[in-house]
């Protein structure tokens, strides 16, 4: 079961990254936070601890933006996680 979940998670990475990109571009912080929260919980469980490590502070940032929409977001908000999602897609044998 875990192998299948891992395969599915990896196969969904391009869609996940696209959804996250869209949410960030449209400043839809609740949606972006929801996606990041899911990556944070599942990534580490399925063999990509790096995703959890990078997603954790991003989720906090998005929560802060959700609470205070006037606060300017970081210029590269989500950039490291999107790069990590791309890297995970290439990683055929995760931890």
């Amino acid at each position, binding site marked *: 079961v875990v192998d299948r979940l891992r395969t599915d998670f990896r196969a969904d990475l391009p869609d996940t990254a696209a959804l996250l990109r869209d949410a960030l571009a449209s400043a839809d912080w609740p949606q972006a936070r929801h996606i990041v929260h899911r990556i944070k*919980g599942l990534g580490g469980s399925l063999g990509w601890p790096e995703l959890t490590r990078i997603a954790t502070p991003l989720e906090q940032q998005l929560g802060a933006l959700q609470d205070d929409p006037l606060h300017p977001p970081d210029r590269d908000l989500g950039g490291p996680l999107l790069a990590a999602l791309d890297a995970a897609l290439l990683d055929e044998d995760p931890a």
Partner: protein
Amino acid sequence: MNTDTSEIPVIGTPGPQPEAAWPHRCDVLIVDDTGASRELLAAILRSFGGNLKLHECRNGTEALAQWPQLNPRITLLDIDMPGMDGLAVLKSIRFQRADAFVAMVSAGSAIQNVRTALSLGASGYVVKPYKSQRILDLVHKYRSVSGVDIFKP
């Protein structure tokens, strides 16, 4: 302040005398809006053996509607779910059954989340991503407070 909650021990209210009056129609109720998270948790529980009766719900509203009939021995709740979140579900279950064994399994590792859950009477708190042992610890805790080993028929 150290806010890393990944190694929080399984703590919380001592919980139940679950064998008391009400029949249990389910060993473990898993409540999580992410299908893969539910499947993973179910697979981990099944890997420990036994012939567990598991039930899954996709959100808090569904869980609360089914909880009285299922009367699960153990309820595992995600927190961050659309609509009614896991903390609201915990509060409502506690209102119905003060002795129910209800634990949180959440990626929400902020210490405030943990404090809130425990103050509402959570029987335990496991932070995602977790090791299988953390789930087994919860089951052992349930056994220690109820005297029931869910892996034995």
